[in-house]
């Protein structure tokens, strides 16, 4: 576990670890379940040292059975606990799909039972993981009423959103991007804080084009914005942070201002979250639009393994730059 002195920089990964540690200290209802999270500290070492501190029941190594332990988390949550389960990789969440969509998502609507639980899902590519260790599964769950989805892009949000997720009375899937784990750092406040679920953030103000994005792609958008500034194109970058419920207000406000929009995500293009936001804009902000709504996303294939294939597959800064130029010229 990472303890941070005032002002010490922490990585995105350490921010997640800190949030878990602080919430477990603060609230004894919070406990962790997953594969290899105990003595081993998890595949990514997020819970390193936790079992020593909290014991083998609050940091509980499960059998290899995602449906079983997600189901168990639902049961414990309904009894008043606050379970946080770890998918070893987000990809394996497909094994627990039925429990998440049919049980966790619907219990409250059907019969009023709150299911306050969090599923941590290390997702995303750029790590040579291939088709089964790189997936972005958020699109599936976005289409299941009753779930909340968050996807932080910075250490600050990673910590604050995880705390908010743990304190939320609903099932929340927390998408943590593996590529960011050790690649970005930030100095975090020493006092307790949360980042509220349902609030997007304008990461960079701009006037010409809004880029609506989340997760690792936020950093690409910021890079592109920097590059485009030199060409006199001003990008506004909106980091959704919460994918469900969407912060329509912030998105709409941005697009009403710039009148042009690019959806950017690493998930497959067809049926991705960018499609929904584009549809909302086309329905509710049509009169403000001065050009087509462009989408930049991964193509509709599994995530390929080999380096040139994966590089081709993932959205790039140049894709954003090209799209912005096209739109600016519109």
């Amino acid at each position, binding site marked *: 576990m990472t303890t941070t002195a005032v002002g010490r920089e922490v990585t995105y990964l350490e921010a997640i670890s800190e949030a878990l540690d602080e919430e477990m200290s603060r609230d004894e209802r919070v406990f962790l379940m997953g594969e290899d999270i105990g003595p081993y500290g998890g595949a990514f070492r997020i819970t390193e040292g936790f079992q020593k501190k909290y014991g083998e029941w609050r940091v509980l190594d499960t059998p290899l059975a995602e449906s079983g332990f997600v189901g168990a988390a639902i049961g*414990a949550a309904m009894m008043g606990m606050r379970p946080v389960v770890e998918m070893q990789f987000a990809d394996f969440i497909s094994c627990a799909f*039925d429990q998440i969509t049919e049980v966790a998502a619907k219990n409250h609507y059907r019969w*009023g039972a709150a299911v306050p639980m969090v599923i941590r899902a290390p997702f995303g590519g750029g790590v040579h993981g291939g088709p089964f260790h790189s997936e972005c599964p958020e699109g599936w769950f976005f289409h299941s009423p009753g779930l909340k989805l968050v996807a932080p892009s910075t250490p600050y949000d990673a910590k604050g959103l995880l705390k908010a997720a743990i304190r939320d009375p609903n099932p929340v899937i927390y998408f943590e991007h593996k590529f960011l784990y050790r690649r970005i750092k930030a100095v975090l406040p020493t006092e307790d804080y949360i980042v509220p679920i349902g609030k997007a953030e304008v990461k960079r103000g701009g006037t010409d084009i809004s880029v609506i994005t989340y997760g690792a792609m936020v950093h690409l958008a910021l890079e592109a914005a920097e590059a485009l500034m030199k060409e006199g194109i001003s990008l506004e970058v909106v980091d959704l942070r919460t994918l469900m419920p969407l912060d329509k207000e912030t998105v709409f406000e941005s697009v009403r201002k710039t009148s042009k929009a690019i959806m950017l995500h690493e998930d497959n293009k067809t049926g991705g979250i960018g499609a929904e936001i584009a549809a909302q804009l086309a329905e509710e902000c049509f009169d403000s639009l001065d050009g087509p709504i462009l989408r930049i996303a991964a193509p509709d294939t599994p995530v390929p393994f080999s380096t040139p294939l994966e590089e081709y597959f993932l959205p790039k800064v140049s894709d954003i730059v090209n799209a912005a130029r096209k739109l600016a010229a519109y």
Partner: protein
Amino acid sequence: MDAPVVAKDIKRTDLLQMYYYLRLTRTLEDRITALYRQGKIVGGVYTSNGMEAISVGYASALERDDIIAPFHRDMGAFLIRGITPGEVIAQYLGKRTGPTKGKDGNVHIGDLKRGVIGFVSHLADNLPVATGAALAFKLRGESRVVITNTGDGGTSRGDFHEAMNFAAVRKLPVVFFCNNNQYAYSTPLQLQMAIRDVADRAKAYGMPSEIVDGNDVAAVYLSAQRAIRKARAGDGPTFIECKTMRMHGHSEHDSAKYVPRELLEEWKKKDPIVKAELTLTQLGYANEATFREIEERAKKEVEAGVEFAEQSPLPEGPEALEGVFADEHEVKP
């Protein structure tokens, strides 16, 4: 063992109470079936006809603070947990006074205040959930237990396996009942599994199991009691196979032609209500008059329930939009 020999370990009042619930369950489900035939029911009707002893038996063995995660033939358990016949019928009619306020139907009854985890159609899905409730009790050092139930059919699903295994590894205070009525819908046991006793499933998990006569409420009750005691003492889960037979079709629109008539004839003789009456009579706990009196009481309650339900309001359309997300105050403290 002869039924009365077993049953003598049960207090007279308890046994009489179970008889009452057997009657109430039968009467209520028969009444719902009648309403269905009159076209008054919204959706399908699944009954526990011929199998009432199982949920009446296990639910009678529980304490107030315990939890059940029933399946679709556990009407007796609902009633014992305090869901009234009126609420059940209201649920079937889609009324706002049903436990799910019209959001869900028939046996999809859930109410945490009365210790009932709502059934999910996807069979076996609630078994892992039941282990999680038991885990919560273990984590908090409470001596509460969970009972869950599945059909023979449900034991073929992966979630059955994952739940049984987890419960056994962590010695969780949960009892798995299995209502082996020899069919899953139209599919006979031998096309579902290559074993004769579903109880053999438990061997894969190192979990102790019992096989009981599911039509004998006293046997079910005592078996549940043993397993509950063990679970409460921290000695882990038990799997209890109740041999029984589904006497109605899978649901009311199914005439169950695929079930050999002789099989039904044979099981008809083992009717749990008849069996319970025999036990009570042989033990000298009750006589025909008691039975008729209880039958009448059950009928009255069910009729009052019909009246309550029929007079209850339907929900209004826009209520469809309510309740997708929970508020903090709804979380169990």
